[in-house]
């Protein structure tokens, strides 16, 4: 497939991206970013050094192969610090523009109102940690916005980078979107800020039987989701389309891609807390089982099922109420730019696209290029886009019938082979049985007789296993036969059976939680911590009971706000009852043992007497 054909194919199915109101950065030409950036190097135990200044860096320079010591990181740097005057001027202009165009972002329901105390405390620590962790400076987003505006004024339009890959019978259209900056944290209360952002979606085409390519699947990259959960079938109603163009709802600032407009609760778990999280989740599950609570209705989505107790919540706003780019939209795409391993900077530059902050959680570090992970290894979405979306096990639609038939033929053959083996082994088994019968009552053949009996047992088990396999194959063949008939009638496989954890927007009742819940979520952790300090300062007579009482009071307020009061009352009372029961058991252990034995004896007596009287009654009748 030559370049013109690839571009034609990319344009035919190019997506429409709907942004959230207030978004400042849109897909642009990555080479324009390179030309406006400087190249830096950070060697272990050294300060970063500038290798190539902004005016001298070109895509060709970046394409030069290089060798570095272990632990060395190269990175691009677009943003330079702003002066206070520039900052103030930009902020004023931004406010005026927002007022004029009603383009300002409106914060949704507080993310903290959707999670519990533990997550709020971890969130607070995470925020405080930002002061100590490596992070992108506060004025970087403003400087990036100014820089982006300048680039746009120079005539750069909205453009995507396209790549066409043929793999395992699929033709994969990859749409790579390069954003100059990710300002999810600084503008939209998200998890991180970083320079540069690469996002990607894939459309999977396959021949439809008449040698024409048609789309069968589409996959959107979205935060840490991977495999089967990323993709949807082309005819899935969740995939919104305008003609042949799928619609992407981009997260505000994060630019993560979603199939449906909405506000997505994304939880980030810190690796250091993983063991605590696992233990807490196990305890919670056991407690729910003990309390006979019904499982959450939407257990498929961890976020809605309560998620992890120590995860930090962030809301990704993908409302789609802002600028829309794509065919038939307010803004159109410029002609796509093809990328591949033939492009030097794609293949040879393994460094970061943007400031290297040395953040231990890596959230504030810039990403690598489209081909690489941050550590310089090749991304799976690049070398295996089919497997990346879990499609490696899925045959294209036109091949399904053939695959099903081939599988049926395989199993039929295996079953015939098994039957043949069963026949042979049955004959042997019968011969052995005759042999054993002939040796019975012959003391001098006792050893061979015992061995023969052992062989009979072994062979009998083998035949039993093969017969079970044959029976299972019969059932399997029936199923395959039915599935083949279904395919021949033009049917297809289940639409969404492959999705294990669908990322769905927060339901309206969550998204519109009360104002009181939001206020409480904002102040509760601070009030709780201050209450503890006051309590320890005054150190009252019954300190433990005061601690428990304060915790209980906060828990009850929280439960009332979140509508889980009954559950909490039940759990609290049960926990105290267990503690009380343990005290009684400790104090009266042998009395309890004696009581249990007497109760058991009484029950046995009662049961026996009942059986006795019942049998006498039936005798009398």
């Amino acid at each position, binding site marked *: 497939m030559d370049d013109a054909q690839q571009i034609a194919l990319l344009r035919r199915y190019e997506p429409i991206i709907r942004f959230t109101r207030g978004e400042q950065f849109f897909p642009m030409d990555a080479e324009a970013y390179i030309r406006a950036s400087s190249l830096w190097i950070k060697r272990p135990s050294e300060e970063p050094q500038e290798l190539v200044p902004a005016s001298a860096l070109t895509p060709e320079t970046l394409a030069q192969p290089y060798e570095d010591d272990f632990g060395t990181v190269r990175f691009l740097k677009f943003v330079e610090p702003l002066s206070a005057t520039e900052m103030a001027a930009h902020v004023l202009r931004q406010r005026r523009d927002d007022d004029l165009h009603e383009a300002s972002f409106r914060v949704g329901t507080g993310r903290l109102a959707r999670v519990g105390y533990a997550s709020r405390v971890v969130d607070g620590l995470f925020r405080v940690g930002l002061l100590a962790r490596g992070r992108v400076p506060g004025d970087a987003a403003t400087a990036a916005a100014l820089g982006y505006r300048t680039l746009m004024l120079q005539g750069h339009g909205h453009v995507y980078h396209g790549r066409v890959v043929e793999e395992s019978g699929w033709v994969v259209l990859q749409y790579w979107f390069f954003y100059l900056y990710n300002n999810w944290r600084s503008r939209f209360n998200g998890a991180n800020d970083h320079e540069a952002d690469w996002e990607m979606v894939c459309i999977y085409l396959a021949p439809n039987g008449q040698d024409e390519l048609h789309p069968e699947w589409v996959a959107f990259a979205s935060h840490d989701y991977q495999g089967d959960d990323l993709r949807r079938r082309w005819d899935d109603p969740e995939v919104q389309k305008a003609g042949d163009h799928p619609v992407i709802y981009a997260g505000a600032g994060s630019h993560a891609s979603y199939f449906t407009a909405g506000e997505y609760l994304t939880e980030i778990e810190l690796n250091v807390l993983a063991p605590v999280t696992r233990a807490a989740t196990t305890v919670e599950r056991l407690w729910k089982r003990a309390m*006979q609570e019904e499982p959450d209705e939407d257990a498929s989505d961890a976020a809605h099922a309560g998620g992890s107790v120590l995860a930090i919540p962030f809301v990704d706003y993908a409302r789609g109420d802002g600028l829309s780019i794509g065919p038939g939209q307010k803004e159109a795409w410029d002609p796509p730019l093809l990328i591949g391993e033939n492009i030097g900077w794609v293949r040879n530059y393994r460094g970061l696209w943007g400031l290297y902050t040395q953040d231990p959680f890596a959230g504030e570090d810039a990403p690598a290029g489209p081909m690489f992970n941050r550590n310089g290894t090749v991304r799976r979405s690049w070398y295996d886009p089919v497997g990346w979306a879990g499609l490696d096990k899925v045959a294209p639609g036109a091949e399904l019938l053939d695959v099903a038939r081939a599988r049926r033929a395989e199993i039929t053959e295996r079953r015939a082979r098994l039957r043949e083996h069963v026949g042979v082994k049955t004959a042997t088994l019968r011969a052995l049985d005759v042999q054993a019968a002939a040796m019975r009552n012959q003391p001098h053949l006792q050893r061979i007789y015992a061995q023969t009996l052992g062989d009979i047992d072994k062979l009998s088990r083998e035949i039993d296993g093969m017969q079970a396999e044959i029976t299972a194959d019969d059932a399997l063949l029936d199923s395959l036969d039915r599935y083949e008939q279904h395919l021949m009638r033009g049917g297809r496989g289940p639409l969404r059976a492959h999705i294990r954890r669908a990322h769905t927007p927060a339901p309206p009742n969550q998204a519109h939680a009360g104002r009181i819940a939001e206020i409480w979520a904002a102040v509760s952790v601070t009030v709780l911590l201050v209450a503890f300090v006051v309590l320890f300062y005054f150190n009252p007579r019954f300190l*433990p*009971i005061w601690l428990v009482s304060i915790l209980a009071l906060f828990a009850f307020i929280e439960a009332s706000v979140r509508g889980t009061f*009954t559950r909490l*009352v039940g759990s*609290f*009372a049960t926990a*105290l009852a267990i*503690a009380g029961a343990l005290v009684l058991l400790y*104090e009266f252990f042998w009395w309890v043992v004696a009581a249990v034995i007497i109760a058991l004896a009484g029950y046995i007596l009662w049961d026996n007497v009942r059986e006795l009287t019942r049998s006498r009654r039936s005798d009398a009748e």
Partner: protein
Amino acid sequence: MSEAPVPQQIPLPTFIKRSDNQFRWSLGITVAALLIQVAFFSAVAAYNLSLIDWGGDPAVVLASPETAIIFEQAIVLLPFAGLGLVCVFACLLRPQLGWHMAMLVQSGILLIALQVYLSDRNNILTRRPLLYLYMLGAILIIVFMNSPEGRLLLGQRRRKHHG
């Protein structure tokens, strides 16, 4: 030959239809248990108060440490006896509210009993057998109220049955 009844016409077995009766039983058991607890607390409090010789000035009478402890034991029980009575009325008038109140009162009893158990190791403030009886009573009431039968007061089973 008469036609077999369609499933909707088949009368339900009695054990499925007993929901309303069961609710009444649950309510009855809860109220009875709470009343017994109230009576017990009141009796112990009254007995303790009767042990005090109120002949002189109350300030002087309560100045004695032994008398003060006995008085304290009686006074601690009275609020719970009163709250227990409130729970009984709440259960009769608004079972759902009554369930919540009763559970909170039992939790309060257990919380204080555990605190006393852990802090009063020399048995100065309490007589241990009585303390264990308070705990046992609260535990049994909580166990019952948390059981599917006890939770009928919350109205869950009834709604499900009619739904």
